[in-house]
């Protein structure tokens, strides 16, 4: 071959690679020859143009032939594969179910991860949005709200932000409809929605004039509230409603978007909030009631914004030394909004994704094994086809087509399963993030499922292909059903079983640990009795109940009415009640006689309660007395404290009769009782110091009513609300729920995590056990002859059972050992999910090992029993 010929051939071969390998194998050399002839002829004619034309025509021909050939091959392969799948219906169904479950688990979890963690926030320029928090010093935890003068300073002096908007949440009362309604209200800057890029569905957004002092009061409705309370009626825009004492005009309806930090019903501009617009708030740097959101200028990093704002904070401290402690180093923490919205969900999502991934691995290993087992049975068919001239590539392609079809059908089933579980899952995710509503199956999820199916195809299809490295002649000689396990294949299958057991072990450990944590959580003594307690939150109309006396009178009348209801054993009000998720009311206090150290004032949580609070909740009195009706305005100020606070400040002393000083040391209060500790915020958090003061002496606008009932507390809910209307027909109730429900909600997230992990682990266990059983059954059928010989020379059935069991259990035990090692290495990843149990908890490890071994034993038992029932004569004759 001459040099130009060689070059031509090389280029031509590259073109040929577009054609299916089989086609190339059949005609490649010939086509090469034809092309060389054609090219030589063109060269003889001496025209460069002719050669170019030949190349062009040839390339065109191959480009049009290639897709046609690929398609026809695919059609042929698929038809054949479908026929084979119908022939092996048992295998096909098993494989599709296993893969469907594996892919379904992954698709479902991925659809959540995609919606919550991967997708950009559904706000315009979501990546530039920040949540700002002040902190007192570098080491102090961030989280302080910001005062109006501070916000104005940040706005004026920053260089890195496009906009800073404010937010706070209030409860207003919507009047003028069938019943008064308590509405959660977001009070925001006029350009709040502009910064988030949310344009009203109907009507208009706030305008700068709406925020002017004295401007007519206007409202934007949230999408959910509009649907819920107005049935999605677009004519609501322009209507006027009374909110507390003022008419408000609805100017628009917001689109659905994740609301943070609260799900509000309506929004109003900051000037409409009487507290926010009072001179007390506007003029005082220390009245910190606002949360700030900001949008960075393009190309600014959050760290740069943080540094910029911290400089502003330092300047404020210099300018207004009286408003900041001397030793403070105020700074600002700027958290990207996406992180803010998803940080709580992230660890759980990733844990579940990993667990689902493990399930998929097990499913793949299982189907690969099924495939291998089937290969043994099909060996003869494939051998014959090879002998009849089917090329290696053709057979390989055939096998891959079969696994592709399995993977695709499994993927479709998985997609259906995922879609079916999505509603449940998004309700679960809603406990972690406001992005839950974005969870649905979209293009990204479909692509993910397709990618997973492809991955499955590679994993399940490759094993048999690798194992087919055996000699054609041996295959034919051995004959179909009696073909022994080839060395490579046997090892591969054992390895796959070991892997399934090991990964199942990991999943079971994960599930075991979270389930134990859940049990521990449920066993935590909350310090109160949650059963049969009704809670009714309400928020007094702040335009009407302006004096302490009016607030105290309202509560007193309400309690009198509710206590008199049949079925109510006791009733009380409280500022906060356990596990209701409202923020802790922390405050500083001084201890009389210990005022020396002013820098380190002790702090505690405060709760404002009516006398029967302890009785309603069943909190034990440890010393002194309960609060009583005589502890009212004008009487000596009193408080009761919890055990934890007593231990901290009066260890081995009697705190009764001691005085603590509130309001910067201005207000002495006498400790009259010590009560048991209560888990106020969450069952998994340690108890904090708590001071309870009487509502009659410290009235406020937002107490919650609680009633201990004889039967189901929800049964009297409506009657209680009627009593509320009797006291004031314009005073609505907020959330009404049993305390037991709050307790259940507080552990709902860990419960669901444990349930999901448990489900995945059970799935893994079932798949792995079925895998072991299947492999052992095949081994038995392949060793029938050998077993027959053994029995013929005197082996007893028990020995045969032992022989088969030991083979299967050997594999399972290796899997368990590897699983233990892997679990030791990996369980630290779940540490943050655990409560009251260590990641290497020996009991869980032992328990899981026992469960897995038992499952393996059960899976091996059936084939072993079948082996023991082999009739030696028949077995020998089959050879």
């Amino acid at each position: 071959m001459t040099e130009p010929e060689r070059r031509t051939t090389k280029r031509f071969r590259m073109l040929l690679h577009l054609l299916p390998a089989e086609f190339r194998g059949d005609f490649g050399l010939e086509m090469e020859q034809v092309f060389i002839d054609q090219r030589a002829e063109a060269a003889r004619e001496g025209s460069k143009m002719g050669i170019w034309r030949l190349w062009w025509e040839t390339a065109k021909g191959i480009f049009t032939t290639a897709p046609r050939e690929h398609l026809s091959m695919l059609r042929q392969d698929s038809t054949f594969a479908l026929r084979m799948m119908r022939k092996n219906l048992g295998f096909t169904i098993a494989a599709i179910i296993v893969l469907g479950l594996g892919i379904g688990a992954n698709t479902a979890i991925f659809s959540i991860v995609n919606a919550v963690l991967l997708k950009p926030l559904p706000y315009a320029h979501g990546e530039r949005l920040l949540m700002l928090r002040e902190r007192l010093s570098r080491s102090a935890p961030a989280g302080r709200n910001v005062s109006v003068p501070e916000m104005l300073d940040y706005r004026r002096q920053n260089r890195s932000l496009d906009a800073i908007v404010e937010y706070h949440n209030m409860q207003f009362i919507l009047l003028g409809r069938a019943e008064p309604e308590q509405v959660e209200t977001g009070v925001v800057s006029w350009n709040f929605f502009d910064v988030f890029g949310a344009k009203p569905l109907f009507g208009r957004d706030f305008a700068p004039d709406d925020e002017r002092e004295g401007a007519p009061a206007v409202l934007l409705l949230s999408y959910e509230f509009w649907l819920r309370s107005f049935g999605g009626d677009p004519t609501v825009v322009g209507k006027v409603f009374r909110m507390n004492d003022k008419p408000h005009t609805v100017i628009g309806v917001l689109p659905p978007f994740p609301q943070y930090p609260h799900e509000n019903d309506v929004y109003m501009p900051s000037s409409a909030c009487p507290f926010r617009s009072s001179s007390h708030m506007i003029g005082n740097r220390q009245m910190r009631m606002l949360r700030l959101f900001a949008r960075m200028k393009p190309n600014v990093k959050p760290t740069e914004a943080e540094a910029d704002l911290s400089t502003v904070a330092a300047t404020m401290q210099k300018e207004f030394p009286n408003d900041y402690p001397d030793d403070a180093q105020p700074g600002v923490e700027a958290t990207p909004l996406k992180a803010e919205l998803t940080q709580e969900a992230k660890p759980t999502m990733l844990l579940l994704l990993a667990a689902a991934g493990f399930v998929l691995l097990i499913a793949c290993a299982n189907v690969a094994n099924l495939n291998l087992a089937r290969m043994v049975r099909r060996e003869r068919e494939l051998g014959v086809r090879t002998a009849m001239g089917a090329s290696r590539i053709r057979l390989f392609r055939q096998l891959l087509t079969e696994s592709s079809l399995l993977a695709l059908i499994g993927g479709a089933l998985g997609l259906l399963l995922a879609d079916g579980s999505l509603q449940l899952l998004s309700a679960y995710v809603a406990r972690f993030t406001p992005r839950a509503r974005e969870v649905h199956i979209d293009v990204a999820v479909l692509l993910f499922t397709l990618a997973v199916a492809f991955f499955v195809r590679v994993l399940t299809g490759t094993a048999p292909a690798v194992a087919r490295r055996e000699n054609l002649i041996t295959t034919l000689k051995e004959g179909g059903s009696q073909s022994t396990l080839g060395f490579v294949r046997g090892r591969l299958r054992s390895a796959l079983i070991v892997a399934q057991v090991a990964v199942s072990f990991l999943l079971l450990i994960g599930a075991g640990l979270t389930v134990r944590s859940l049990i521990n959580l449920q066993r935590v003594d909350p310090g109160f009795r949650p059963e049969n307690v009704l809670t009714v939150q309400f928020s007094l109309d702040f335009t009407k109940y302006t004096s302490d006396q009016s607030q105290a009178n309202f509560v007193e009348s309400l309690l009198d009415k509710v206590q008199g209801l049949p079925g109510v054993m006791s009733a009380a009000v409280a500022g906060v009640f356990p596990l209701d998720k409202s923020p802790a009311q922390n405050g500083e206090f001084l201890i009389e006689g210990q005022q020396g150290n002013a820098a380190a004032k002790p702090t505690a949580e405060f709760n404002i309660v009516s006398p029967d609070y302890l009785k309603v909740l069943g909190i034990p009195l440890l010393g002194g007395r309960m609060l009583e009706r005589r502890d009212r305005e004008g009487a000596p100020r009193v408080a009761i404290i919890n055990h934890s606070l007593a231990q901290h400040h009066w260890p081995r002393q009697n705190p009764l009769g001691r005085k603590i000083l509130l309001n910067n040391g201005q207000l002495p209060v006498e400790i009259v009782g010590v009560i048991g500790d209560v888990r106020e915020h969450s069952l998994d958090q340690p108890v904090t110091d708590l001071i309870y003061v009487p509502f009659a002496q410290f009235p406020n606008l937002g107490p919650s009513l609680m009633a201990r009932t004889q039967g189901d507390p929800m049964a009297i809910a409506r009657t209680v609300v009627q009593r509320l209307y009797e006291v004031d027909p314009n005073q609505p109730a907020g959330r009404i729920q049993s305390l037991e429900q709050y307790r259940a909600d507080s552990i709902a997230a860990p419960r669901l995590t444990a349930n999901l992990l448990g489900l995945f682990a059970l799935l893994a266990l079932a798949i792995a056990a079925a895998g072991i059983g299947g492999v052992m059954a095949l081994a038995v059928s392949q060793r029938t002859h050998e077993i027959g010989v053994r029995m013929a020379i005197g082996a007893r059935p028990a020995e045969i059972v032992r022989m088969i069991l030991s083979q299967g259990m050997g594999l399972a035990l290796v899997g368990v050992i590897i699983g233990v090692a892997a679990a030791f290495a990996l369980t630290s990843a779940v540490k943050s999910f655990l409560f009251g149990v260590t990641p290497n908890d020996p009991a869980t490890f032992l328990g899981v090992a026992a469960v897995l071994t038992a499952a393996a034993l059960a899976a091996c038992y059936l084939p072993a029993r079948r082996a023991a029932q082999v009739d030696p004569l028949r077995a020998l004759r089959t050879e």
Partner: protein
Amino acid sequence: MPPKVPEPAQPLTPAMFHVLLALAGDDLHGYAILKEVALRTAGEVKLSTGTLYGIIKRLLNDGLIIERRERPSAHDDERRRYYRLTPKGREVAATEAERLEKVVALARSRHLLKRTQPA
């Protein structure tokens, strides 16, 4: 009942028909088929290698042609394969030719063709 005419698995395209026509004369290898088709159609039908072998594969599958075992000379390039029309192929080609003849006759009867006599 009219005698059953063997039908190819797929309808015959003009290019396939030309390949069959080329092989109706003599057993030919791929390059020779290309040349023959180009010659007989005065360059009007020009097959590329890709198209040609797509056609050959289909004709082989349908049993209209076969590969000839014996080679014309021992010195012939080993890569060349010679193809031969099978009786079935011949029949299919003839049927197609008859069909075309009828079409031409019809066209003539409607005065679509200028010449009244065949050449």
